[in-house]
């Protein structure tokens, strides 16, 4: 059981309101990702759940128990920090055993659980080393190991992959997803990287300036962003936003088209422009199109075999069913 219910949770530091009252329910066994630009309050929200910060008002229920005033250790949660927060003077084994020792568990049980965690996370090779002798990925594993031995009702991850290089990050992403499937425990994961959010989450919570902009499954957010902020934040490269007459023709203040939903051709399209920078990734090519009269720049994604170069005049055709319409307030129409 690991349902977390936030109701009217508010956090203010002095006069500065970081999180205006918000409601959120994280279901048992769900992988929920808090995503948003830096400074949007996602880490603060996680720390409120963990108990590292006190709520200014509102209540937090974990497992059906009122926990707003409970100390962190009594909430039955485990947290993995951005810096991993391993204890540098203890070996990996002692690090992992630490929460169990604090819980005064008997030695045989501690041993069993540590060995089990080591097996699950492939730590056995360096179980007697100190964190200083480990690589980033290994430290990350140890931090996760320290979290899982407690068998918490929910895991909290605070940007756990941001200190790793790209290749390792992909690997660890998979491992964490794998772990979630195997343990079937609630996980709350904070990241600013929308790719992590899209790939791992059952449910994404998009935050902006402390407000929840939208809650939904990854594809929900991709296909039906509630407003311009979500539309711009989810998806890479960013959605093209077009205002003015073109938008008015669609009966909207702003329309948005994702780069992958615009076809490029030599001629015969709806819009036209000149290719500026083109990025060829092999599988895909990204073109930055200028002089369209729509916006400063339109980004277009097409297959890797398309070979326009700088200065080429091209023709653009948006897929009509993939045009997102927004009103003046930036909210989605229809």
């Amino acid at each position, binding site marked *: 059981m690991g349902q977390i219910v936030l109701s009217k949770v508010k956090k203010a530091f002095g006069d500065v309101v970081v999180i205006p009252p918000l409601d959120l329910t994280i279901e048992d066994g769900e992988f929920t990702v808090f995503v948003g630009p830096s400074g949007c309050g996602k880490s603060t929200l996680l720390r409120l759940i963990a108990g590292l910060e006190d709520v200014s008002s509102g209540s937090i229920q974990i497992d059906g128990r009122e926990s707003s005033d409970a100390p962190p250790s009594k909430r039955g949660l485990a947290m993995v*920090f951005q810096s991993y927060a391993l204890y540098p003077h203890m070996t990996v084994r002692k690090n992992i055993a*630490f929460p169990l020792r604090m819980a005064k568990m008997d030695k045989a049980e501690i041993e069993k659980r540590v060995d089990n965690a080591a097996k699950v996370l492939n730590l056995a090779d360096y179980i007697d080393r100190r964190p200083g002798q480990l690589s980033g990925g290994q430290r990350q594993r140890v931090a996760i190991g320290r979290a899982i031995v407690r068998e918490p009702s929910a895991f909290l991850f605070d940007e756990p992959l941001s200190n790793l290089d790209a290749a390792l990050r992909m690997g660890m992403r998979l491992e964490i997803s794998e772990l979630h499937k195997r343990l079937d425990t609630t996980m709350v994961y904070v990241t600013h990287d929308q790719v992590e959010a899209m790939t791992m989450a059952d449910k994404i919570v998009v935050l902006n300036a402390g407000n929840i902009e939208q809650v939904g499954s990854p594809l929900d957010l991709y296909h039906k962003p509630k407003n311009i902020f979500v539309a711009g934040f989810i998806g890479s490269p960013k959605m093209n936003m077009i205002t003015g007459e073109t938008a008015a023709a669609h009966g909207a203040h702003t329309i948005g088209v994702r780069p992958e939903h615009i076809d490029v051709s030599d001629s015969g399209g709806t819009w036209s422009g000149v290719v500026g920078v083109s990025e060829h990734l092999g599988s895909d090519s990204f073109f930055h199109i200028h002089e369209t009269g729509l916006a400063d720049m339109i980004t277009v994604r097409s297959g890797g075999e398309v070979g326009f170069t700088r200065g080429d005049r091209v023709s653009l055709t948006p897929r009509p069913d993939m045009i997102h319409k927004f009103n003046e307030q930036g909210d989605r129409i229809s």
Partner: protein
Amino acid sequence: MATQHSRSAARLMLAPAVVLLLGWMLVPLTMTLYFSFKKYLPLRGDTLSGGLDWVGFENYSRFIGSSAFWPSVQATLLIVGSVLVITVVLGILLAILLDQPMWGQGIVRILVISPFFVMPTVSALVWKNMFMDPVNGLLAHLFEFFGAEPVLWLSEASMESIILIVSWQWLPFATLILLTAIQSLDSEQLEASEIDGAPILKRFWYIVLPHLGRAITVVVLIQTIFLLSIFAEIFVTTGGAFGTKTLTYLIFQRVLESQNIGLGSAGGVYAIILANIVAIFLMRIVGKNLDK
């Protein structure tokens, strides 16, 4: 870039410092060794130009055979040990206190550090005349206020008084080093241990204290070097009376009060040996701690 050229240039530039340091250490050391094997009593007419008599190890056996020798070694070790314990323990507590966010932090920190800027002679005088004087001292007034008999600090509790004065001087140093160490502790580690269920005392014991280990060894090492040779505090307050005669002070008395340079030099050699014994012990502990 450690090319051949830059390395020899570095050596050349280091040379003056090395030569100076060597001279500074080697010349007095050799002279001390030389005098320790000679009979050198200036008041009895011994002069360098007139030649000194070789007496072998007589100075050494006389120095160690004197009834003042062992008590002075004990006094030295007692002062060093007590001051170390007091400064490290109080230093950790003060550092934790100063690390808390509070109003006027900058000023408080400067105030805490200020005793360290007071010269040993001055601070000993201040303590002697302002606090410990049995008639006019602040402590005497305090005791009288509560109806108690003023303590004759420097004669009745002389060792404690000196330890108090020296600790007061060195506490800021320990606090400063330990404060910087505490500030470098990753707050996420403390938070992690809090979530892991460690109450405050266990967090201190398992997380903060090990983190301070290195800083504590540095404090102990540096303070020991200086504490082995404290002199002004004793000279100004008790003058070596009431069991406060340290090895350093004994040597001073032999050389300047008894005007026996040979005997004092032999004492100096003993002091070097004592310092080295202490240093070997310390280095082993420090070495272990710094390896981590």
